[in-house]
């Protein structure tokens, strides 16, 4: 929150001495060991003053100064005048743990998620950026509006309850959402939302916002009130919000672990490996949650295509090759010549087999083998994934396919969603997954999909 008090002013002469100062500046200077009539004692301010005098222009900059035990963030403006300079300080803020800059970026990210189209304006509310996302409605030509006032693009509606949220935002510097408006070009109703951009001194310098068609927004609201497990675009939002930061964490941790910048102490390198692994784990959870909300939707559909289960099984085994050898487990692959034509969605079938084979690898003993076999059963094409693990008792055969189920409470890997999602996917493709197992006898998971002749 910015300090709304009037700016604090002082004067410095051509020799760098503080000749006049408002009380707050005088105090700040005194605590730094200076006094009126002597050189400005706050180092960051003195540096800015000297630079401005040599460059001969007005300068402004955000400055951090220490005061007692706190740190203050100030906006400092210096302007040459009469041989010396005037110094103006504003926006006094005490620095807390997380920086205000990061908060602004995060706000902009949330605003971006609020709609499909993104727009930006300068301080005079002229459009400087306009990107139409998916599903651009007819008659809407974003390019033609660039440079024009925002009100040329949208007719803003006066909301009897809330007035003009956008006006409030511009004057107070706060964000707004739910401003109703109409696209002038085709009369479609939209909701607008935005965060404000300010310069360092807190002056308004533009809006970063999004627009969402009212009919889409209302549809989403209706769907979420129908009791679905997650709001309809949860997956997409999650993806945007989590994937990028996680990818960055993993990439950085990987490069630390690989010691690309030079040698590291061994334990630091292995911490980095832990970080990368935890990052990957989280990314896996994000994927699982996304898939979960997708398969739960009433309108979830698979686009069926001609696939070869043998090819997909070979690919899945290939993807897991490294993980298998790390656990000293062998995957006994199918021969190149085998085929098993079926109907399903390539990507989803691959996902299911990676899940099944991955489980088999995880539960295999060291030195063990995972077998893959193909079989035709009536009008179903089957892939059997067999492992030599500890096996699953018959009373648990249905439980393991439940949501968030874990047979082993100590098991930390995975989200407990893999088999649930896999079975939902298999069923959506017209097939199923079954298990045949008993304690001490390993397990055989069978993916069945409609066969194709």
């Amino acid at each position: 929150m910015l300090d709304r008090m009037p700016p604090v002013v002082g004067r410095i002469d051509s020799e760098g001495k503080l000749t006049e100062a408002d009380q707050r500046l005088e105090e700040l200077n005194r605590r730094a060991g200076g006094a009126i009539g002597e050189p400005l004692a706050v180092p960051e301010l003195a540096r800015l003053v000297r630079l401005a005098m040599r460059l001969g222009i007005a300068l402004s900059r955000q400055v951090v100064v220490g005061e007692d035990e706190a740190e203050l963030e100030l906006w400092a403006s210096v302007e040459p005048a009469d041989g010396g300079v005037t110094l103006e300080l504003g926006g006094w803020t005490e620095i807390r743990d997380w920086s205000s800059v990061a908060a602004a970026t995060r706000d902009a990210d949330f605003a971006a998620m609020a709609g499909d189209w993104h727009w930006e304006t300068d301080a005079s509310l002229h459009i400087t950026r306009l990107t139409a996302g998916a599903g651009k409605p007819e008659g809407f030509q974003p390019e033609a509006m660039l440079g024009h006032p925002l009100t040329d693009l949208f007719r803003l509606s006066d909301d009897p309850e809330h007035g003009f949220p956008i006006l409030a935002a511009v004057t107070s510097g706060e964000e707004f959402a739910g401003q109703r408006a109409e696209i002038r070009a085709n009369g479609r109703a939209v909701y607008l939302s935005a965060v404000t951009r300010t310069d360092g001194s807190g002056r308004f310098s533009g809006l970063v916002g999004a627009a969402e068609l009212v009919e889409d927004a209302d549809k989403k609201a209706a769907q979420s009130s129908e009791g679905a497990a997650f709001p309809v675009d949860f997956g997409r939002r999650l993806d945007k919000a989590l994937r990028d930061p996680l990818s960055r964490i993993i990439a950085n941790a990987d490069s630390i672990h690989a010691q690309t910048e030079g040698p590291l102490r061994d334990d630091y390198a292995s911490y980095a490996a832990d970080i990368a692994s935890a990052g990957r784990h989280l990314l896996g959870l994000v994927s699982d949650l996304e898939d979960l909300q997708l398969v739960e939707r009433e309108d979830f559909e698979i686009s069926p295509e001609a696939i070869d289960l043998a090819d997909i099984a070979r690919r899945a085994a290939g993807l897991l090759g490294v993980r298998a050898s790390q656990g000293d487990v062998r995957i006994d692959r199918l021969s190149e010549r085998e085929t098993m034509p079926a109907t399903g969605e390539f990507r989803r079938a691959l996902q299911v087999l990676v899940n099944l084979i991955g489980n088999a690898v995880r539960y295999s003993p060291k030195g063990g083998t995972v077998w893959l076999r193909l079989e035709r059963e009536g009008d179903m094409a089957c892939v059997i994934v067999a492992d030599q693990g500890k096996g699953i008792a018959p009373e648990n055969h249905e439980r393991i396919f439940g949501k968030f189920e874990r047979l082993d409470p100590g098991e930390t890997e995975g989200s407990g969603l893999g088999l649930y999602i896999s079975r939902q996917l298999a069923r959506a493709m017209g097939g199923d997954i079954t298990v045949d197992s008993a304690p001490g006898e390993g397990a055989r998971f069978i993916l069945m999909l409609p066969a194709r002749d």
Partner: protein
Amino acid sequence: MNSLMSGRDVDMHGGAAKGANRLLASVAALTARARGREMAALRTVLRGDSAWLDDRRRWAVGMALRATVVAVEEEIRAVAVPQLLSIGEETLAERVETLPTVADRVISEDSESNRRVAAEVVAVTRLRLLGSAIPPQAPEHHDQPSLLARLAERDHMMVTPAAMALLKAEADADNGDGSGPVILPEPIRGPLVWRVAAAIRLAIRSSGKMEADALDLALCDGARRSIDNHSEDIDAEEAAMRLAATLEAAGESLVEMIDQSLADRRISLFTALLAWALRVEFSAIRDLIFDDMGNGLWVAMRAADLPRDMIARAAFLLSEAGSRHDIEALADTLDTLMEIAPDDARAALAHLTLDSEYRHALRALAPKWVGW
């Protein structure tokens, strides 16, 4: 020109001091330093060993490079797959369609061509990130639109479309974090397209000669189409150069525009205006912006006859954005710089008016050449 370049005490136009000579001479090794950065760029992207690239920038460059290559790949596939389907090669079409991306394989190859791609992506990304880091300046009056908005709204036959084209190109290019794909210049893009097509070919196993021939043809068509489609491309840099030319033709003061463009955080426009004023290529000025060891950028601004306060303002904003120029050093040399006549400054930069491909080729053949 040789005497200016010798770097020794030479009396120019009534006694510019040693300091001025030194400033002018520092421009000399610019191209060599640029090549050095180019060589480092590929290492940078692959193994991350550049001082400039902190984690965030390295991530942005990596993403931008990948996005650039993936974009090429998508275009080739978008032509090859329908073509294969139309001749009945369904299995082959499906293999091309479902093949995982070859981008990583293409990027990891250590070659001159790849180095140039990486260098260009690094340069474009770096400029974008620099621009977005310029501190926002609120205008004196709220109802005064920003520079580009003003130009776009103006209803001038030539300026308005050029300004809107730049606004659009910048909007398209920029995800806000510098990680979007980069439009590569023609001499650099062509070789990349062929390498991507070859990588796709090598990743697919075909059974029999007929299949192999069909695949080769489809991929070649895809590659050729991708090259042709992009020869008309206008990226932000190109749009900025066109706007600069249009503004001069419309009688605007380029000097005024240069000052306002940085305040409006339009670094591409700033670069283009300066480049156009000096009749050099956009990449030449871009190189100067990144030449933080040299004073070339200040000499260039002097050559464009910018007054003292504008040079100071531009230097300050760029330094605040993180350009790594030593602002204190500039503050010290500013008076000396202003003693240089614009014509002398121009003469010192004369080699930048030569084609960048020519300069690049000279450096590639003779890295230690002491010319310029």
